[in-house]
């Protein structure tokens, strides 16, 4: 296993560099073809040239290679890599605040949201998947099947808006009209948007919306994997020994069936971070995702690029950890 981990680590470096270069190249191409992004900040007005130049310089868009179409701007890329890996500098926003600061402020909310989402999708998804897998063709099985297709085809922003309006506003208003319901529930959990006073309670529903997208995939994966394993020889042996059904399912079958599910959940952290952009915008959670959307709407491209670079690094690290964990969990994995 040691050799596998080392190989995986060595592969990690070119992937990180490549992904960051891709991001850099996409940005540079966009600037080369559409002109200085700083102009977008001024909308229809024409900024004074000195001001324009100062901001351009400040945000690092002053490099002459950004005027040459198709130029990959290797010099700029190396500078940015140096800033990121040696100074931990991901750029600044218009008010001269470091992007790292902005992210540090927003991070706790996003982390809580992600934890809620992953826990929700793991618990509900695995439970539904096990129920469906144990009784193929049953009501639960069909329910899981249909809801999977349905959840996949509803874009997360439609789901988010509908849940916010129906559960947060409509149902929430009914609850808020009742005297006997504690405020944590009526104002906190069923709040249509994030509430500062209830930082955890009002994140529960956004977290569930975020988790709902991958919930279906988790359930389906668990179902298939349980169905495969339930016919395996070692499960029959366990039954033949006279073990209780609970033990056969809970220990022998489930343990082996969960390996692909755990891998999926790990990889899903990355997808959930991207999904958080949508969920946080809808529920107005002051996390990293809302930071990205708001900066994108106002045209602060330096913040968007900085934050996304950081997120991509986190996603890559998460994938690396999942791969290593996979090798630990499943002794059959050997890349020689």
């Amino acid at each position, binding site marked *: 296993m040691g050799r596998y981990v080392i190989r995986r680590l060595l592969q990690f470096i070119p992937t990180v560099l490549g992904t960051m270069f891709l991001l850099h190249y996409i940005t540079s191409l966009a*600037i080369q073809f*559409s002109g200085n992004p700083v102009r977008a900040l001024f909308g229809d007005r024409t900024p004074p040239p000195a001001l324009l130049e100062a901001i351009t310089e400040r945000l690092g868009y002053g490099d002459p290679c950004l005027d040459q179409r198709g130029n990959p701007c290797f010099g700029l890329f190396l500078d940015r890599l140096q800033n990121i890996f040696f100074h931990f500098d991901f750029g600044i926003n218009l008010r001269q605040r470091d992007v790292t600061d902005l992210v540090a402020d927003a991070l706790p909310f996003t982390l809580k949201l992600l934890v809620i989402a992953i826990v929700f999708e793991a618990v509900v998804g695995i439970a539904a998947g096990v129920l469906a897998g144990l009784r193929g063709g049953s009501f639960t099985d069909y329910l899981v099947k249909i809801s999977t*297709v349905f959840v996949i*085809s509803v874009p997360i922003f*439609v789901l988010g*808006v509908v849940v916010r*309006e129906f559960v947060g506003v409509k149902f929430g208003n009914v609850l808020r009209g009742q005297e006997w319901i504690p405020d944590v529930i009526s104002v906190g959990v069923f709040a249509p948007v994030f509430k500062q006073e209830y930082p955890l309670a009002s994140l529960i529903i956004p977290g569930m919306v975020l988790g709902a997208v991958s919930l279906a995939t988790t359930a389906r994966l668990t179902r298939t994997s349980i169905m495969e394993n339930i016919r395996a020889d070692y499960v029959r042996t366990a039954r033949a020994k006279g073990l209780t059904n609970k033990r056969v399912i809970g220990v022998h079958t489930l343990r082996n069936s969960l390996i692909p599910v755990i891998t999926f959940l790990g990889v899903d952290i990355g997808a959930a971070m991207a999904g958080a952009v949508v969920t946080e915008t809808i529920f107005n959670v002051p996390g990293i995702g809302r930071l990205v959307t708001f900066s994108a709407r106002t045209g602060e491209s330096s913040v968007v690029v900085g934050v996304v670079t950081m997120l991509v690094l986190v996603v890559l690290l998460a994938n690396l950890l999942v791969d290593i964990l996979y090798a630990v969990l499943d002794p059959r994995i050997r890349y020689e």
Partner: protein
Amino acid sequence: MSDLTSAGAAIGGAPVAGDGPTTDAPGGSGKERSASLWADARRQLVRDPVFMIAFLYILVVGSMAAFPKLWTSQDPRNCDTARSRIAPSGEHPFGFDILGCDYYSHAIYGARPSMVIAIMATTAIVVFGGVLGLLAGYYGGWVDTIISRVMDIFFSLPFLLGAIVFLTVIKRQNVWTIAMVLFLLAWPTIARIIRGSVISSKDLDYVHAAKAVGARNGRIMFRHILPNAIAPMLVYATIVLGSFVAAEATLTFLGVGLQPPAQSWGIMISTHQVYFLEDPWLLLFPCGLLVGTVLSFILMGDALRDALDPKFR
């Protein structure tokens, strides 16, 4: 207009396309009926009610996109704020939106950008990803190594994040740039699918036979190996059409996609989300159309997969 009419044809052509390669596709299944894989698949699909309903729905949406005049005589830009948010009636089945424009015609005209973006991006990934996957799978060695590494790099950039960065920086958020960013970030999946099926079929006997009689690489690739990869490619392309429609609406909703004077379902949803409680129809109509389209594409893809995979018979 030409790409729009071909748009309709491309959607309508999904199962019909089965006629084309019938002759050179290997007749993999149905020993007793001696029909080709494509003929069998078509027979099964026509009998499948889910597929037919989804297919009809897509035909309807496709005709909205290609010929909006067929569906409505109203102009979605003919607005009058005095009519703001009037409820649906016989003459105006979807009512009026916040600016007093006819909502039904907006919904009809809104089908076009989604469909055009989805079809352009899907065609691009099928051609580009298909060629790269074919090269990587067929030649192997260092060609495969380079293409696979590049695919890994594109894979590790989360789709939504990459699209937001690109669209923010480029500032020109129109049908072309959105289609381009969707293509740019989505081609590796299809390349990987093609590569897999090329690798699995390049050592088959008839490929060796073709080599032995002196067929050139290009002929072997396109006449003998590629037909094997068409089935999985068709399935994935159908599903990806649905996810592109959803992606366009999501990007528009986030404010980095199409911008308000344009008509699109994403704009309809994001403009009217706050009026949901007073006038729910403002949200339900575009959401319903959008979800229906995405769902239909996914169901069609599922049905195609079942029909084209001999193992499921």
